[in-house]
């Protein structure tokens, strides 16, 4: 009772939400600690009761890198702008791995937490958001391996790495979150997403210059691939870390614009569906 008298309770207005006001970023700010807790929980629980634990964050990209090296370098002998194929592919596999994990976890996040969605109020955006952020921990661990690889193959990064790499990472996160927002909201009503996701990611992988070099493509193909925001991310990572490619050019800006469009449209689609999540999930 004494506690109650101390502070004036906040007043909440509940009404059918419409238009821009529906974004409700204020509530997202109030619940910011929940994002932290959800990420923390995901990271803590992810490798519980596994023999290898956190090592999986390393094994997954390293194994993919070895397979790619065998198929695309030793067998197909693709051109890699003069970089050792191991480093060349691993540099791209890092942001790609982050993207795929974010996509998988993010698009399932609402359905996976349906008991939260049907019982309590909180900004639903938190669920796909925290799934995407949780992938950053794996990314950081695998990044250490990349640094080791770069030392081993004596690749010296340029100084622009320091300020551009975080920006490309941000681009990867914005893209992943944008797609996750769309897919998670659709998944609430149509579980088709679960079935489509495996081959969508596979298709997407080959539409992104992860295994091959962007510079070997024809100009038309380059423009077409830039419509895929992950192209901008992968090229950016290679430019920042390995010094290949052109750095910020038209292709990159196309990727950035597409990524932002996906993100903003995803945000609004998510919010417009949010009011019926609890009813349809």
């Amino acid at each position, binding site marked *: 009772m004494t506690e*109650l008298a101390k502070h004036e*309770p906040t*007043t909440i207005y*509940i009404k*059918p939400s419409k238009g821009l006001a529906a974004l409700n970023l204020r509530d997202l700010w109030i619940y910011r600690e929940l994002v932290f*807790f959800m990420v923390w929980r995901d990271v803590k*629980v992810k490798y519980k009761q596994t023999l290898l634990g956190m090592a999986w964050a390393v094994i997954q990209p390293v194994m993919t890198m070895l397979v790619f090296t065998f198929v695309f370098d030793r067998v197909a002998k693709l051109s890699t702008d003069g970089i050792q194929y191991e480093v060349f592919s691993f540099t791209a596999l890092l942001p790609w791995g982050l993207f795929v994990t974010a996509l998988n976890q993010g698009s399932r996040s609402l359905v996976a937490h349906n*008991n939260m969605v049907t*019982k309590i109020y909180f900004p639903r955006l938190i669920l796909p958001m925290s799934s995407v952020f949780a992938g950053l921990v794996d990314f950081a661990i695998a990044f250490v391996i990349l640094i080791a690889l770069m030392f081993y193959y004596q690749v010296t990064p340029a100084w622009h790495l320091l300020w551009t790499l975080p920006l490309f990472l941000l681009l990867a996160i914005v893209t992943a979150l944008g797609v996750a927002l769309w897919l998670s909201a659709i998944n609430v009503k149509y579980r088709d997403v679960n079935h489509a996701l495996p081959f969508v990611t596979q298709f997407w992988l080959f539409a992104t210059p992860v295994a091959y070099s962007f510079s070997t493509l024809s100009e038309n193909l380059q423009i077409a691939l830039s419509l895929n925001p992950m192209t901008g991310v992968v090229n950016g990572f290679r430019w920042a870390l390995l010094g290949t490619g052109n750095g910020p050019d038209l292709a990159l800006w196309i990727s950035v614009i597409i990524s932002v469009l996906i993100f903003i449209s995803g945000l609004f689609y998510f919010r417009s569906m949010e*009011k019926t999540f609890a009813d349809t999930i």
Partner: protein
Amino acid sequence: MTIAISVKQLGKKYQIGAAETKFRYNMLRDVLVDTVYAPVRLAKALIGKSDRRSNKNFVWALKDISFDLEEGRVLGIVGRNGAGKSTLLKILSRVTEPTEGTVTVRGRVGSLLEVGTGFHPELTGRENIYMNGAILGMKRTEIDKKFDEMVEFSEVAQFIDTPVKRYSSGMYLRLAFAVAAHLEPEILVVDEVLAVGDAEFQRKCLGKMNDVAQQGRTVLFVSHNMSAILRLTQEALVLKKGQLIKRAPTPEAVDFYLASGQTESGERVWEADEIPDASAPFRPIRLQLKDRSGKVVDTVRSTEPVSAEWEYQLDAPVTGLRVGLYLNTMRGEYVFTAFDTDDAKQYEQFGTRPAGRYISCCQIPADFFNEGRYSLGVNASSFGVRRYFMDESALSFNVDISGAPGTQWPEVRQGPIRPRLDWKIEKID
């Protein structure tokens, strides 16, 4: 007096029926046709048009509800299943959005429904307290401050750093409840109908609700249990089919509710609009629970037999019909399922039932029920052919155990049945 909750012209529309038309793959042909039409469905979904059929099937779970509630009052909400009670609470706790109207709520809304939401079995008790607290909207500093109190309340201090998957279900529930109970919302909503857990847990919920009310906070309480409503609330709303039909001091509201014949007092009558078209030619009329003297009762004595009578109409002859009952506890566990043609001879005799009015009646023996509340569901189907009608909770009733075995000890007996077993005690040495 300040107004804690102000509800104006609130309405909530649900779409129904969409799910039913989706998965009815009886034959390979259906699967193939369904596959061929998949691109058409996808195209329709993308442009925001769903099935024609489902578009028309709307139901207003709530319509035109308006009321104000002053701070510090305890308000009861009564009404039959489907009257909109739970929908109202869901809107107030912002789980779902209204279709129309507004609600103004002064302060944080908590409900004991959220108990244990977000608990992860791999996390320790300590970690889950923080996780669950954050989900319920507590700040970390707030959780820090109340942490010791919560641990003490939960009585699991010794295991606080053990993953909760190693907890017994009782410990798990106590810990979950401890967090929810320390949320200290300005407004507490309690939906007893949905509250799961054992009798002990439900008692704890009601106790907590009482404490909250004593502290001068606002409480909304939904229950089917009229004595709890009478005991705990001062005022009550009566909802019927999504509409607010009465607001009055509790004794008056309960009288009104009981007298208006929409109570589940040992009888369930189906009105025309409650029977889906798909159930034809089967038409349920009424289900009654009768005691030894043939009186309709809503409280059954455990020491006496009780009979369940289901009256229904067949508008056309039906072959292979079986009409039966499910008995459930309020926690949703099945106690039994039985049909009127379970007996092979009976099944032969009633292979085809001609059109007409029927009563299928059975007797549940004495010394069967344990203490508490049960629900009776009904089902009419032809095995492997069709299900005509089903209602998983057609009526619910209480059991009075006075005189039942073991009542000399005032304790809660586990399990849904309380048989009188033939014990023998022998001294063998």
